[in-house]
């Protein structure tokens, strides 16, 4: 069973819908700011991606709203856009077995706030009814499945910074196996100090606080760490047969998913693990590395991670030299969301014939010699792209999405 993307929605620090995000990608616009509150709290770095919290009062009724943490609110908005672009309404959802698989790996604020109430009041009954549904890792799939009255597969994938990518990968496998015809897949990431404080403690964040828009600089010699970010991204995955039957617009076809585990360090990435994930994805897609015209790199702007990914790309792609960029140079590191949002960013590029720039790459690191990294917005016909996502624990995910214009249709 072939698997296609028939809907996309995005709520990102570089735009709150597909049109705004496409424009930001084309312009090479950064969504990074300095959050003074983090400095007051004792953060080493106050840099972060930032997007407003959606106003949902009057949009969703109270019971559907109070179980949503902020990343659930982002995901509700991105899913509305995805369903709308897919031409799916509530009547369709009520009459078909549509599933949901979302990537999410934390929900810090409701945990902190509910325990703060308990410590102050010394009575669990003062916590109220919303926090339990906000605080679980499965909060996004749990809430959206109720809001949209979904009847298919329903769970959350927690795979660190590859969560969103694995969610799409697992959705792809389930549809390919004929187990579901349509699955709402995506990734969500909360933006708040509570969720990133312990990550800040690892000295992993950029401290280029004087120039927020220039702080995330994957592959640049002077990069000094990642910038945390967030939002939500949703894709509607559907069997090709179902899409054809509905007359749906097809944004791209998922043709390959590769995964692996490094089996080494909890936070330090290696070369061999990502190589295996990319090779498995390419094997699954049944194409040669030369068939891939663009790689959306995981590259987060950390000294070790970017170079190890560069080495693994060189190992897999050798002389074929596809265009490469890390959109994290603009968005920061969207963590649990990133694997899903970067599929959307790359699909927007594929369908609009350009590669978004890897901004802030002023002085290329020696380790990227030989790689074809787009430092400017580059016109390109993309037949297929590969999107990498790697996470703590050495989890790796590579997805390959093919254009609908490459002769397959």
């Amino acid at each position, binding site marked *: 069973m072939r698997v296609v993307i028939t809907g996309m929605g995005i709520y990102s620090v570089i735009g709150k819908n597909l049109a705004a995000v496409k424009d930001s990608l084309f312009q090479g616009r950064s969504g990074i700011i300095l959050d003074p509150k983090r400095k007051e709290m004792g953060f080493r770095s106050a840099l972060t991606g930032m997007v407003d919290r959606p106003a949902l009062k009057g949009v969703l*009724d*109270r*019971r559907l709203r109070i179980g949503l943490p902020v990343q659930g609110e982002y995901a509700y908005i991105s899913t509305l856009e995805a369903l709308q672009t897919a031409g799916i309404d509530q009547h369709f959802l009520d009459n078909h077995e549509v599933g949901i698989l979302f990537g999410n790996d934390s929900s810090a604020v409701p945990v902190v706030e509910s325990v703060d109430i308990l410590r102050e009041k010394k009575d669990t*009954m*003062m*916590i*109220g*009814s919303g926090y339990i549904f906000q605080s679980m890792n499965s909060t996004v799939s749990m809430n959206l499945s109720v809001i949209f009255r979904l009847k298919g597969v329903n769970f959350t994938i927690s795979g660190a910074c590859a969560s969103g990518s694995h969610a799409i990968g697992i959705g792809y496998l389930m549809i390919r196996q004929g187990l579901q015809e349509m699955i709402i897949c995506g990734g969500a990431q909360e933006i708040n100090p509570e969720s990133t404080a312990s990550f800040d403690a690892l000295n992993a964040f950029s401290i280029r606080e004087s120039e927020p828009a220039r702080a995330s600089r994957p592959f640049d010699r002077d990069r000094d760490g990642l910038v945390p970010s967030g939002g939500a991204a949703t894709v509607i995955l559907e069997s090709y047969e179902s899409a054809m039957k509905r007359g749906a617009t097809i944004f791209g076809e998922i043709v390959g998913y590769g995964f692996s585990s490094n089996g080494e360090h909890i936070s330090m990435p290696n070369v061999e693990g990502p190589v295996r994930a990319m090779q498995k994805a390419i094997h699954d897609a049944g194409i040669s590395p030369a068939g891939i015209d663009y790689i959306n790199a995981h590259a987060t702007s950390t000294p070790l991670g970017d170079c190890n990914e560069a080495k693994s790309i060189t190992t897999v792609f050798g002389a074929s030299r596809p265009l490469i960029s890390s959109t994290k140079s603009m968005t920061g590191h969207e963590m649990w969301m990133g694997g899903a949002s970067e599929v959307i960013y790359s699909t927007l590029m594929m369908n609009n014939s350009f590669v978004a720039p890897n901004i802030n790459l002023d002085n290329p690191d020696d380790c990227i010699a030989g790689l074809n990294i787009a430092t400017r917005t580059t016109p390109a016909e993309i037949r297929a792209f590969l999107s990498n996502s790697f996470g703590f624990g050495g989890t790796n995910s590579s997805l390959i999405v093919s254009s609908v214009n490459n002769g397959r249709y």
Partner: protein
Amino acid sequence: MQNEEIIRKINQLLIDEIEIEEELITPAAELKKDLGIDSLDFVDLFVIIENNFGFKMKAEEMTEVKTLQDFYNYIINRVNPN
């Protein structure tokens, strides 16, 4: 606190905090059937009542509370015990 003031305050809390539509609020309205207050909303009412009236509702005392008038009476009796 006068009984009328307690009733006014309960009504306003139901509108503001539980988001019950104002026109549904009548003394004879049944909490579950007419106002749609479910078991999770009762959990939130517990918090709302303690924060606004300063006492803890007890689940076992709520078993006889069916209508909004019953609820008014319960709160009035807790705020102004004889």
